[in-house]
């Protein structure tokens, strides 16, 4: 395993995340896409830290990113839940009263 392998996997994860973000209608699936993006960056950070830079700053950064991701998803799920309560659907297409 070299750095390149990790970078390839993380780039693939990032691409999958963006794909999920753009194509999914269900809010929960979109959130999963966002998680993939964050984790691809995490993989980058840890791989660079292990194989490239030789310091621990990247590992430390990754720990904080995990925390942020958890906080973000907690807030996002709360809002998706409110959406479901108000409209009985998790579909983003139906949240369409604001436009113009």
């Amino acid at each position, binding site marked *: 395993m070299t750095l390149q392998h990790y970078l390839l996997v993380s780039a693939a994860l990032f691409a999958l*995340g963006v794909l999920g973000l753009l194509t999914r209608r269900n*809010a929960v699936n979109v959130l999963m896409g966002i998680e993939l993006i964050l984790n691809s960056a995490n993989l*980058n950070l840890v791989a660079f830290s292990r194989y*490239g830079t030789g310091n621990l700053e990247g590992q430390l950064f990754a720990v904080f990113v995990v925390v942020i991701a958890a*906080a973000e998803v907690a807030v996002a799920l709360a809002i998706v839940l*409110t959406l479901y309560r108000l409209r009985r659907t998790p579909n983003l297409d139906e*949240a369409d*009263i*604001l436009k*113009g």
Partner: protein
Amino acid sequence: MNEIQQSLQRFLPELALTGALLLVVLVDCAQAAWKNAAMRVLTLAGLAGSLAFCLGLRGVSGEIWSGMMVVDPLGLFFKVLLIGASLLVALVFTFRNSRELHGQGQGEFYALLLAVTLSNLLMAGANDLAMLYLALEMVSITSYVMVAYMKGDRMSNEASLKYILFGAASTGAMLYGLSLLYGITGTTSLPGIREFLGAGMTDATRTTMYLVAMLVFAGFGFKTAAVPFHFWCPDVYQGAPTPVTAFLSVAPKAAGFAILTRFFFSGLATPGADAWDLTGSIDWPWVLMLVSALTMTVGNVAALTQTNLKRLLAYSSIAHAGYVMLGVVALSANGARGMIVYLLAYLVMNLGAFLVVTLIHHQDGTFDLRDYPGLYRRAPLLTVSMAIFLLSLMGIPPMVGFMGKLYVFAAVIERGPSYWWLATVGALNAAIAAYYYARILKTMIIDAGNEEKPAFRLATADQAWVAVLAIANLLPIFFWARIEDWARASLTLYAGR
């Protein structure tokens, strides 16, 4: 030990806010009649204390917390601006004069306001990629909750949903860019990155740096609502409670510019004598120029056809972000000064406009421009003040908005002929903007209608704050020399390692 003590001392503004935030949460648990008043007083005291500590740090420059953050005059200017914005919002918008917030729980609002302010300050002082990302996400997450404040309201919920999905996507892209930046440079500290890039780059590194800059700009563009990352802005501003909209349109945007400035100037450039020399001869200005021109144009053109005042002001705030970006584009000391002067002016003119919109909504329950005729007769004070705010937003002398535009345009023009096209685009945009601002005034003053509706009954406090904000737009020109001195003295960025 010494370093920790010194850091704590220079961290007092943030500590004051943290203390106030915890106390507000604690008081909110009490079941007493006085708790709302107590929380408001605590919030104001925390903000005022933080402001006082900031003023006590004047002229201080250096790193704190082992280089995770810096204290420097430019950061301090932004901190004063950001605390000022929160203070004004807490003073001016109350649960009494906003129909949307009326009857909602107050504790969370004040706690969230303090939390956003705290994270805004962290953002203004961040000096490390990890700190930068943490602060940016903290601002975002707390703003998402603020936007969703009206729990049973479908618009508020939808606005927050769009905000969070858009925000998470763009900050995710930014994080990916930051991770690549760490991989290239081997450090997360901004001065360290500058040193690495300053030592020279291979062609492969330069190509990757372009990619990194694009990805990272997604995060900054989202925070400052710059094109093409502005799509959330109109929906969020329209759906959020108006006091929250007023706050979001000023404070996180200013913090976004603070971090943008620090990232580009401190991380990627070295301060030269006149203009900053960008390391590695990457062609930043062209990218930023394009973004600035597009941001202005898209914001202004889209605002032309809006009839919902909140949505109109949202597009206008996108356009103003474009003007502020002119100061960043210039990449010079004068550009940075233009940027901070513009943000200062933007604070008073935009908050004023939102206050008038809130008060009209409080009385009539409408944000629609088509319900605005006849206001001149029914609410002369509001109409005259709105005229002042709008003329200021247009950039008509002697309002502060004119001074802001003067500084950014001058900074761009003096960079030389290759920048003049941008100044021309800016001038054309100012003309477009004048149309839709003037249309609001025409509706309020000249158009006939609403003859049967009664005159406005405004609380004395509301009248006083409208007047104060109007005066804040008119008077500064008379003691401009002092503001100029303050802005000039604030132009130092701590750049050491």
